[in-house]
């Protein structure tokens, strides 16, 4: 099937392949790999755990989640009588990988009649993600419609229109100052009338502590539920991979007004590790579904737990990756 072929082609140009395009050198200078830790210690002692703690916290996993992970690790090390730091590394990587694994059903919406609302705080890359997602779905043969419900930020509609043009999909809405709820209503009506497979809704960035804006979002969510009850619903929160502990609060608060079905973790081509996704997964059980690794329309990929964990510990970045 041609669909699968395309999939394969895309996956090949993976996260690390992209990173290596010119960025690797600088990146390696900045990011210290975990391997030095594992090779620098001959036994599993307090210093060793302290070093692990540092790496996890430096990856933005956060104090609490780091504490939990290390506690679990210590228990396992004891139970399994692991003596070598290298064995310990395997345990650690495995446990985080397992936790971050995404259920394959998580991507069902790509093949169904669905409405995807993309939400998040300002500047995380919502519009760009919508554009990339539209390109991705269009390429896999879906009939896509984009709705520009960010009627607040200056020129947001223009930006999205450019993405729509690149992805070759139609767009509705986009006039500054319009009521976003009415844009959503119109978009749903249009999607039904045109027999669209996937309706992608771009929303305005809003800080999760702005009550009125969050209520606005709740209303938009309700309208979709009401007007399009048989559509598969996805609410994807876009989180900036460089964001620290606040991302957890964001996920929690956004989830309060519109039930979240997944995360798009953006800006993962920098030096940030996006470790807060681990904390979010363990506290709120929301999976990361996509990661953004660049500015091109093809730079949105399905989340891969292996690659994520490797990047977190920067292990397979080394030439002599030892998996």
């Amino acid at each position, binding site marked *: 099937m041609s669909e699968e072929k395309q999939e394969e082609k895309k996956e090949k140009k993976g996260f690390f392949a992209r990173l290596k395009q010119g960025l690797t050198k600088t990146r390696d200078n900045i990011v210290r790999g975990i391997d030095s830790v594992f090779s620098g210690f001959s036994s599993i002692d307090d210093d060793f755990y302290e070093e692990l703690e540092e790496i996890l916290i430096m*990856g*933005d996993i956060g104090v609490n989640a780091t504490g939990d992970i290390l506690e679990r690790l210590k228990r396992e090390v004891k139970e399994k009588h692991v003596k070598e730091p290298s064995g310990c590394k395997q345990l650690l990587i495995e446990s985080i990988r397992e936790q971050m694994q995404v259920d394959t059903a998580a991507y069902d919406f790509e093949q169904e009649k669905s409405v995807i609302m993309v939400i998040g705080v300002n*500047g995380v890359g919502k519009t760009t993600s919508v554009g990339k997602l539209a390109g991705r779905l269009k390429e896999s043969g879906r009939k896509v419609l984009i709705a520009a419900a960010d009627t607040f930020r200056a020129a947001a509609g223009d*930006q999205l229109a450019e993405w729509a043009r690149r992805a070759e999909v139609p767009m509705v809405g986009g006039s500054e100052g319009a009521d976003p709820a009415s844009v959503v209503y119109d978009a749903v009506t249009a999607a039904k009338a045109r027999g669209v497979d996937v309706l992608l809704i771009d929303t305005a960035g809003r*800080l999760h502590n702005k009550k009125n804006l969050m209520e606005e979002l709740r209303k938009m969510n309700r309208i979709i539920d009401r007007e399009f009850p048989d559509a598969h619903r996805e609410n994807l929160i876009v989180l900036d991979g460089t*964001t*620290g502990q*606040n991302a957890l609060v964001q996920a929690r608060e956004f989830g309060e007004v519109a039930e979240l079905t997944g995360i798009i973790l953006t800006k993962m081509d920098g030096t940030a*590790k996006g470790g807060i996704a681990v904390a979010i997964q363990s506290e709120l059980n929301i999976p990361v579904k996509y990661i953004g690794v660049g500015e091109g329309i093809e730079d949105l990929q399905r989340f891969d737990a292996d690659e994520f964990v490797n990047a977190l510990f920067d292990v397979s970045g080394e030439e002599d990756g030892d998996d």
Partner: protein
Amino acid sequence: MAFESLTDKLQRVFRNLRSKGRLTEEDVRAALREVKMALLEADVNFKVVKQFIKAVEERAIGQDVMNGLNPGQMVIKIVNEEMIALMGSETTEITMQPGKAVTVIMMAGLQGAGKTTAVAKIAGKLKTKGKKSLLAACDIYRPAAIEQLQINGRKQEVDVFEMGTDHKPVEIARSAIAHAEKNGHNVVILDTAGRLHIDEDMMAELQEIKAGVAVHQTLLVVDAMTGQDAVNVAKEFDEKVGIDGVVLSKMDGDTRGGAALSIKAVTGKPILYVSMGEKLSDLEQFYPDRMANRILGMGDVLSLIEKAQENIDIDEEKSREMAGRMKKGKFDFEDYLESLKQMRNMGGLSSILGMLPGMGIKSADIDSEASDRQLRQSEAIVLSMTKAERRNPKLLNPQRKYRIAKGAGVDVAVVNRFVKQFEQSQKVMKQLGGGGKHGRGMFGGFPGRKGGFPF
């Protein structure tokens, strides 16, 4: 936030510690462990935290504990001072070129940091100071970046200069400056594209702008919610392009903003503005003390420390006198009234009881309103006594107690209980005073909770 506040944590740590004259190594370490966690939760970079904690530890061990504070609060006071010192003890402004010369400001940062919005906000701010700005659209990559700048410029009523997306940013900058000189603008603000600090080509573009035109101020715009990576971003921008100051964006969120501390620690460059909201007017000066409070997440304790400081300073004489009397077990009802007065000055029992050193009461344990009510009742009882009775509780016989109860509007049993508790705590104070462990002002001299001071 779901996190247990630093205040609560410190209360827990210090519940079992007695107030002491000096900060011991043990006190400092215990308090700093919690401070460290709080800083990490606020996204201050791990390495910066480590250095910072070490510096505070060195300064704090052996310091005298100020009157009215417990060791934990004393440590926090030092932490706060050090943090403010680190973040720059005064607010700074963008340095302008003298006279009529055009000041060129270049904005740089990662994607989505809020550069374009900050550009317009700064122009608006400068406008109120009589400067005429020209905004130059040097972001030739992001779709609709130019339109966004134009719309923002229009809202602020400042001019925007653009040459489309087919010219190199350095050319646009050069033309913008020429345009500004011709048209009487005295500030040019270059809005550059968002870029990754490790994208060598894009970083070279900024270097090219700096090499091609005279940039007087390069400002890095950083999202206040940035995590551990903030140091990498700031360091790379500073090393490769050179920055003169920082604008912290999205500060109207609920992030603690530890990135501010990390960036300052790593680059040494001042934070000039904080961007607070979506409206173009929401750009504020940076105040290091406010930021320190926010990062620590304990403005409440800090204001208590301040209040304690003010009060104790004024009443130091009285406190010393009282402490002396306590030691001898001569603490009487007059002293009790005085201590009530001090407490009320500090915001009432409900606001300070949980923080009283030596009391070891978790604020959450106390029904503060009920306690305040009880306190008022106790006060009424004391006020219904004669001066002589207050000075000498031994005078209190059943008749006098009956009169006092009537005066205070309570049952005589309440008066009995109150007097009994008071006598007990007098005894305890005498013991403690004799042991030489206490005697640091009235707060330092309060007995432990077992003594049951009659609140």
